[in-house]
């Protein structure tokens, strides 16, 4: 849409001679289309389906739609190229809103598959009517009579499923868009549902609502920065398309740099906020802790995938020609992110906060791969995103099972001695911890190795980044090892902590997440190969 409207508006003085229809390759956009339709169907189901069947139908619709979209990626992958727009014959510019290329489709597929696991964990009911992690009445004041009434009336929050699917749609769009405006739209489409989902936790609702508000306010700020930057870059290049931006940078006079650099920085602020890079990370621990645990897992895996996809496209397609101007700032951000993420994870006493800081550190490691500025870097980042995503969804799913008196036991001391009473869950979690630490034969090692070797191959800066990255890994090993020691080698607390038996859906998510972590550690070749083949951007 934007493609058709914008040139028409900006060139009012010279009206286009004739209306030129935009070219859309429907097969290429099929995954996006299916997910969007799935979300709309979800809204209709919410409105018309009787309450007792709603949960089941919503879950089936969401999972079915996402699966269909994932399958359709196979067809889309043979239709690579720019689409949703037109080639301007007179100026020889290609004004396309979407870039269906390797990184985009790879990430779309990754987001879809991780999204399915996310939806399955969100659907966990533990025998109740609605999803267990979500409050039956999000708008009511915590502890108010309204809330009690809603609970008593059997209200359920099955709208989380369409919301999630909308978020997934935005996430898939995010790395696919080929212009700044589209990127902003995708950013908002993925963020707004997440703001809501964050505030819907059933237990510790005040914490959840506070998290939601903080996420929203800070997110709104960073979105505003993104827009501000977009405006400046538009002023610089006269276009919001990445292709135009890139060619403008190589031709525009130096005097215009006053627009380029602030614009680039501002746009990066918006994107780095989404991945939780330091110093835009402050929301991460609070939000990860406050949000319903399945949402946290979904958010940690999929948002990161989407946002890193967008960062890659911006860094490699849009602003690549001005790399020397902004890469130093990004190097500092990457260093800070790794150091702060790993050092601060040392002191955490809450499992979700610990995982939040771990996700910050991982964001730093991924950034190291982004800063390699070559195809191996892109491949490494893509692989890392998938490896981390599957592990983290499984990890948060396990966190949501560890309970004390029905509420999630997230304090570390509550996890003491878990290995004795619940060896299976604790072993799976310990294994995921090893993966986060990057121990060989887990996906974490392969991904870290791929990223660091790409960085070392890129030169001196990359080598410094890799060395710092390894030091930070050593720190995080301490953190994860401590969790393992706690689970297996410590005495259980006096008050009993149990691991509730999940439904088949959550079990499936945990199993798939853990097995993927193992498989990508033992036989990573096929995915590495795929990521490598998918590492070429179209322009």
């Amino acid at each position, binding site marked *: 849409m934007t493609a058709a409207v914008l040139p028409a*508006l*900006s060139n*009012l*003085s010279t009206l286009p001679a004739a209306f030129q229809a935009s070219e859309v390759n429907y097969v290429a956009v099929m995954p996006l289309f299916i997910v969007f339709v799935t979300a709309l169907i979800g809204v209709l189901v919410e409105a018309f389906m009787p309450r007792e069947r709603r949960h089941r139908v919503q879950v089936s619709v969401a999972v079915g739609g996402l699966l269909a979209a994932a399958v359709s990626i196979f067809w889309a992958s043979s239709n690579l190229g720019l689409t949703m727009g037109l080639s301007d014959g007179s100026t020889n510019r290609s004004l396309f809103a979407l870039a269906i290329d390797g990184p985009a489709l790879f990430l779309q597929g990754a987001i879809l598959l991780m999204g399915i696991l996310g939806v399955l964990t969100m659907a966990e009911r533990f025998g109740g009517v609605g999803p267990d992690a979500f409050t039956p009445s999000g708008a*009511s004041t915590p502890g108010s009579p309204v809330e009690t009434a809603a609970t008593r009336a059997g209200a359920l929050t099955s709208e989380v499923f369409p919301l999630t699917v909308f978020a997934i749609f935005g996430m898939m769009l995010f790395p696919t868009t080929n212009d700044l405006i589209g990127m902003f739209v995708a950013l908002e489409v993925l963020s707004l549902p997440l703001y809501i989902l964050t505030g819907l936790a059933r237990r510790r609702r005040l914490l959840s609502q*506070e998290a939601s508000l*903080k996420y929203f*306010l*800070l997110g709104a*700020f960073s979105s505003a*920065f993104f827009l501000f*930057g977009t405006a*400046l870059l538009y*002023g*610089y290049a*006269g276009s919001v398309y990445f292709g135009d931006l890139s060619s403008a940078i190589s031709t525009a006079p130096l005097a*215009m*740099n*006053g*627009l*380029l*650099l*602030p*614009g680039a920085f*501002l746009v990066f*602020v918006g994107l780095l906020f989404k991945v939780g890079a330091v*110093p*835009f990370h*402050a929301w991460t621990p609070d939000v990860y802790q406050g949000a319903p645990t399945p949402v946290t897992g979904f958010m940690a895996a999929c948002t990161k995938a989407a946002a890193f996809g967008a960062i890659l496209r911006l860094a490699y397609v849009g602003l690549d020609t001005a790399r020397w101007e902004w890469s130093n700032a990004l190097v500092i951000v990457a260093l800070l992110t790794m150091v702060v993420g790993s*050092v*601060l994870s*040392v*002191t955490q006493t809450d499992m979700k906060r610990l995982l939040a800081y771990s996700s910050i550190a991982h964001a730093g490691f991924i950034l190291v791969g982004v800063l390699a500025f070559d195809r191996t870097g892109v*491949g490494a980042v893509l692989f890392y995103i998938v490896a981390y995503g599957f592990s983290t969804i499984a990890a948060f799913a396990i966190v949501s099972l560890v309970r004390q008196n029905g509420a999630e036991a997230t304090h570390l001391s509550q996890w003491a001695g878990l290995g004795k009473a619940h060896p299976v869950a604790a072993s799976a979690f310990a294994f995921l911890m090893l993966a986060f630490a990057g*121990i*060989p*034969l887990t996906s974490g*090692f*392969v991904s870290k*190795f791929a990223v*660091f*070797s790409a960085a*070392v191959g890129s030169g001196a800066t990359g*080598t410094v980044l*890799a*060395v710092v990255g*390894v*030091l930070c*890994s*050593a720190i995080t*090993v*301490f953190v994860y*090892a401590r969790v393992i*020691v706690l689970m*297996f*080698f*410590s005495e259980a607390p006096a008050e009993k902590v149990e691991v509730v038996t999940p439904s088949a859906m959550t079990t499936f998510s945990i199993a798939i997440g853990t097995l993927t972590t193992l498989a990508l550690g033992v036989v*990573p*070749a096929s995915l*590495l190969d795929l990521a490598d083949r998918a590492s070429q951007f179209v322009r």
Partner: protein
Amino acid sequence: MAQLLLLHLIAAALAPWLAKTLRTKAFPLLALVPATAFAWLLVVATDVRDGNLPTQRIPWVPGLGLDLDFRLTTLSWVVALLVTGVGALVLLYCTWYFRDDDPTLWRFTSVFTAFAGAMLGLVLTDNFLMLYVFWELTTVLSYLLIGHNPGSSTNRRAAMQALLVTTFGGLAMLVGIIAIGVHHTYSISALLADPPPLDAVTVAAVVLLLVGALSKSALVPFHFWLPGAMAAPTPVSAYLHAAAMVKAGIYLVALLAPVFAGAPAWHALTLGLGLLTMIVGGWRALRQHDIKLLLAYGTVSQLGFIVAIAGLGTKTAALAALALVLAHGLFKSTLFLVVGVVDHAAGTRDLRRLSGLGRRMLPVSVPAAFAGLSMAGVIPMAGFVSKESALESLWEEAQEAAPFPSIYGYLALAAVVVGSALTVAYTCRFLWGAFATKPGVPPTPITVPHPGFVLSPLLLGVGCLALGLLAPFESPWLMPYAVTLPTGASPEPLALWHGVTVPLLLSLVSLGVGVALFAQREAFARAQARVPALVDGERGFARTLRAVDRGAVETTAVTQRGSLPIYLASILLVFVALPGMAAVTQGRLPEVRLWDNPAQAVVGALMIAAAVLVLVTRRRLTAVMLVGATGYGVAMLFVLHGAPDLAITQMLVETVSLVVFVLALRRMPTKFTRHPDSPSRTWRLGLGAAVGAAVGVIALVASGGRTTTPVSVDFPTEAYTFGHGKNIVNVTLVDIRAWDTLGEVSVLVAAATGIASLIFVRTRNTRLSRATAKALPSSNAARGTWLLGGRTMRKEKRSVIFEVVTRLVFHIMLAASLYLLFAGHNQPGGGFAGGLVAGLALVVRYLAGGRYELDEAAPFDAGLLVGLGLLVAVGSALAPLAFGGTILETTAVDFTLWPWGEVHLVTSLVFDIGVYLIVVGMMLDIVRSLGTGIDRQIAEEQEQDEQQQETEDEPEELQTEGARP
């Protein structure tokens, strides 16, 4: 070779099951696995000697250069022999070490077998990455083995310490591997065949690799983890800390020595730290009372010695290093296994309580004596042969001054002599401590060990002797490695007797001094006690951990206390630092004209003053007013700039926001909680100013960056010719940029609906409560009253004058809003401004008469109004299509209306009417949700409070009792 590893893996997988069914009988079965590998190594021995190195390549992750490449060189053959041979014997030994009812047997068997496999893989692989993978596997598995008995916190701490130190080293090594791999190759044989030039990257990589090796082999400053790891069961110590894991570091040093021995810092790290470790370890060993700990420090000392010799880089030294590795592996595992037997038999490892064991436990004390003599370097043991050859290599270095100046060679020689003397002393201490009959100590009661239990130490102990006696036959098997070293002459073969040489004399000196030290042990111990600990790696380690911990806690306390302002401040700081600074440094400022009219300066000053006062004030309402003042200032600037239309809109928007603020502020405390002159406010003031300045600069730079003609230059003519209006702003809204407006009003509708339903889920679209339908019971006002407030409001809240004026002004305001709507096309005004005025009129009615009055004035649903407006707007946009025009095309109609005169009607007015309706509806929504809604909430809460008070007044006892947990 991969088959052997697979065998280990399968065995490890089956081990839990075997352990469950066979209990300790599973161990002999599992011992067959390393024994098989050992047998294979013997089979291929001649091939290795003759240089037909067995190789095997299996691609695994070719994309990363991570492949299952194996090859057997002399070096790996030697270490592999040790790893598999000792591994098999230790597993056999475990049969009697563990009890059948040990609940963790399933885990131990599995982990131990897996460890043996990983260790074998480590020495067999020909790929640096696989080396790292096996390296980390041994780390993780050894962690599980050390923490075998997790009950005690000492074990946990020791396991953690070992894990952290070795993982740290391993990761450092990984960076080194990557640096070499990315620039050269991941293949070990390729690297050895074609060594890279020693540039900065390679040297850094080598240093990192050495850090890994040193940490694994427990050299100073990483030496502390090994004694800590003695918390492990004795078989684990015998295997990991004598034969296998600690040898990994030596293996790496020996592997790299042929190509990198010339690198700067190489000798400082290997020889320097090695010899330092040798002395520190020996020194500490003499202070131990636990015989296992004594051995641990002895191991540290020996490892330092071997690393030093392996790192020397001459052919003689290489031969000596291999001999040392073999000798040390044999005697140290013997000694550890002996300790295990003694511990089981006597129930203690404290040498002050052990007494008279030697005679009573001959099957143990004899191999222990062999091993001890070997450790001390007494002829004819293996230890003597290897130490002789090591001294020879150092002597040769000192003579030839290659590869480094001879002064260091002599120093090293002296250090080795001192270290050897200490070794002799602690060997005596060990043998005496474990077996001697001590005066004044009653003979320790023992249980006689099972014959099988002593089999392994016996075999290994005899091995120490055999290897020494067979020394001349040993050399050809080790020589292929020695000749790969670039420096030095071809070494003399190993032998028991080279004649009376300097090394022999030095050996005798150290032996003599060592025995003397032991004889004078009490005096020496007193001397030792007075010397402060020189190198305390453990304290350094603990300190580092504490520093990280503390740093993390403090940083968290500062940056992560959940305070939104602080989070935001960090983002804003970056905003100022990056885009702001970039704009300042890179941007080109246009020529700045300070003002066109001095009045602008005055208004600007007022706005700045208002903005500063906002930060100083303590009342929320005042702050809102002051913020409003800045907005009105902007409106004034518009007026002064000649934009009355913008000014009107700005003025109205400002007023509406003020009203909204006031409505919402009712539910908040009147004052800010934070004291206005707290320090945080000061820095926020600074940050705010900086952000403002940054935005200002960016705005200036942006406007200065203009290179093309703005589109707006055509607007005046286009507005008149196509839009038929003289008010460019309005025509822009309803014609030139009508698409934007359409989009915006749609968003506005969605937002208004959303906000209203978010804030008050229940009050949206509910019944209207008109004043005429409701009367307060107390009031008996008659029907048909003009001022309806009397019926619904409490007396003290009413202001009759306000109500009267409101009623008088209301219709005038409505008329004004209609005027703005219709005049907007040519005069200042428009649908948006008109809608705001109408909305304000409703607000005034609400303020004067309360919610009933509002519903009286606007007896319809806000949603209806909004929807109608959207319908009108979209309808007018589409209408031209019916007449053959394009969407949103504007047509003007001029006609004469009798009492009015000339009428100039433009079709875009209909569009504007839509906008007008939407804005009025939205205003109504705001007042209903924020005004009426909050009113209801307050009323409900008051009722609740009253109820609560009633209930609280009654049961006073409950209150005092109510101390809930």
